[in-house]
């Protein structure tokens, strides 16, 4: 079996429809088989189903309708065909292509099944089950079949380049229908763009929805933090000694412990979706925990609302994790840092409070309080968000300057063109 896997990988890598390459590889691995008769002589029919049917279309990008027809063609192949077709559909994002691991495929399928509306959802489940059950036995087989079909028939659904303009129309359509009610087919109608398929829209919609939740939560935190900061500034005097208690009291009851287990799963699933920033946020946040020893009381700062339900209430818990997580990328713990994203912003102003209290009781405090520097990881997260999702709407919606005036100004400063060919030194 072990010998099978590398063969599969190799096959997959070169599986562009070249029978020769196959025979070359196979002859190395399986000298028993002849050159061109490999496919016929060995029981790989279900793997190289495309070949058998002469379905070698390396450059053809088939529409989803054709994809639906495929199962009929591959009726002789039981699970593999189902898996292949469904995987084809999920291949939009190119994730599947790269992943030969069962887990990733499974998670990819699971995540994509929610995208798919109709038939595929059933197929997905079957496939997922099949995959899991046949994981060890036919690991290579499934991978290779999937890979082969992916490369052979390319993507069933065209990869869409979601430009800001396109995305704007998408958002318009979605908002017209109502975010929760927005159905890809209706969105497609509203957008009226030929090049888009339902699948493109479906996958984009899923991303959009999950991003919105993120964004709204974070910006709500940011907004409430600015407000809070001003509040603290104004009431500081009046609060007096109570300041010590107030933030914490306000915080503790409102903060519940996040449900850890769902987050665990989320993180497993988010692995392939790292582009959405969850794992990266986690990692960046996790890295910084150890760097704030002085802020140990403050990392779980007064958090007025926790949409994510972070665990800051339990400070000792934090310390524990804080020590345990040295470079902290374990899937188990990230659920805390991630929800802390919004809090991190708040962490900046708040650290001023405890030292303020513990200190002389008034003098040094104000500066840390009002001179708040947002934490690096929350900035990083926010900026990373912009970089990875360029089609996002502007948070403030400031009137953009004219390109010409910016370019003109830059040229005066000695910057000939942007984006610069060489990145600035880190």
């Amino acid at each position: 079996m072990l010998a099978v896997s590398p063969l599969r990988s190799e096959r997959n890598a070169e599986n562009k429809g070249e029978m020769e390459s196959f025979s070359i590889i196979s002859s190395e691995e399986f000298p028993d088989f002849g050159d061109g008769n490999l496919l016929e002589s060995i029981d790989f029919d279900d793997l190289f189903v495309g070949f058998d049917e002469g379905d070698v279309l390396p450059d053809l990008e088939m529409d989803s309708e054709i994809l639906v027809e495929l199962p009929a063609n591959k009726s002789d192949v039981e699970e593999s065909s189902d898996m292949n077709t469904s995987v084809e559909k999920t291949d939009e994002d190119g994730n599947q292509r790269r992943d030969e691991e069962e887990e990733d495929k499974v998670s990819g399928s699971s995540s994509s099944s929610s995208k798919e509306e109709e038939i595929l959802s059933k197929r997905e489940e079957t496939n997922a089950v099949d995959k899991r059950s046949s994981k060890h036995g036919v690991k290579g087989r499934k991978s290779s079949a999937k890979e082969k079909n992916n490369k052979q028939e390319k993507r069933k659904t065209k990869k869409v380049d979601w430009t800001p303009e396109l995305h704007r129309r998408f958002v318009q359509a979605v908002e017209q229908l109502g975010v929760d009610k927005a159905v890809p087919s209706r969105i497609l109608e509203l957008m009226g763009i030929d090049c888009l398929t339902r699948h493109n829209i479906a996958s984009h919609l899923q991303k959009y929805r999950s991003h919105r939740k993120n964004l709204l939560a974070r910006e709500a935190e940011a907004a409430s933090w600015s407000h809070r900061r001003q509040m603290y500034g104004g009431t500081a005097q009046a609060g007096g000694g109570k300041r010590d208690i107030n933030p914490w009291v306000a915080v503790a009851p409102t903060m519940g412990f996040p449900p850890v287990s769902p987050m665990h799963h989320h993180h497993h699933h988010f692995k392939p979706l790292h582009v959405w920033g969850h794992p990266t946020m986690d990692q960046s946040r996790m890295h910084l925990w150890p760097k704030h020893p002085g802020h140990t009381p403050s990392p779980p700062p007064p958090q007025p609302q926790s949409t994510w339900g972070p665990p800051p209430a339990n400070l000792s818990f934090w310390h524990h994790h804080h020590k345990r997580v040295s470079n902290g990328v374990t899937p188990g713990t990230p659920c805390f840092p991630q929800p802390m994203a919004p809090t991190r912003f708040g962490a900046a102003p708040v650290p001023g409070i405890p030292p303020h209290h513990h200190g002389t009781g008034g003098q040094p405090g104000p500066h840390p309080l009002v001179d708040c520097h947002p934490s690096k990881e929350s900035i990083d997260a926010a900026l990373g968000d912009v970089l990875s999702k360029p089609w996002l709407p502007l948070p403030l919606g400031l009137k953009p300057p004219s390109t010409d005036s910016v370019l003109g100004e830059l040229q005066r400063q000695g910057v000939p063109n942007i984006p610069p060919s060489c990145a600035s030194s880190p």
Partner: protein
Amino acid sequence: MGDSSTSYIHMVQHLIEKCLIFNMTKEECMEALSKHANIKPVITSTVWNELEKENKEFFEAYAQSQSKQDRMSEEETSQMIQKMISDSSNKDPSE
């Protein structure tokens, strides 16, 4: 060329706006964008300046709130509030 420049400027504007949400100063913004997004500080500052020209009111208000944060302590803020209250109560009879 034009298009990519425009979208690049758009991206820089987006990044700056994110920094504004964090109440960062122009310098902080330049540093952050350089560090996290590899954007040359000169570009950040140019786009910032241009944005300021287009959105004068916003940036004026922003600068004010920034300077208030820098200068005013909690005590000063509460004193200011108390003063404002007493001022308004002083004004009332005349109105």
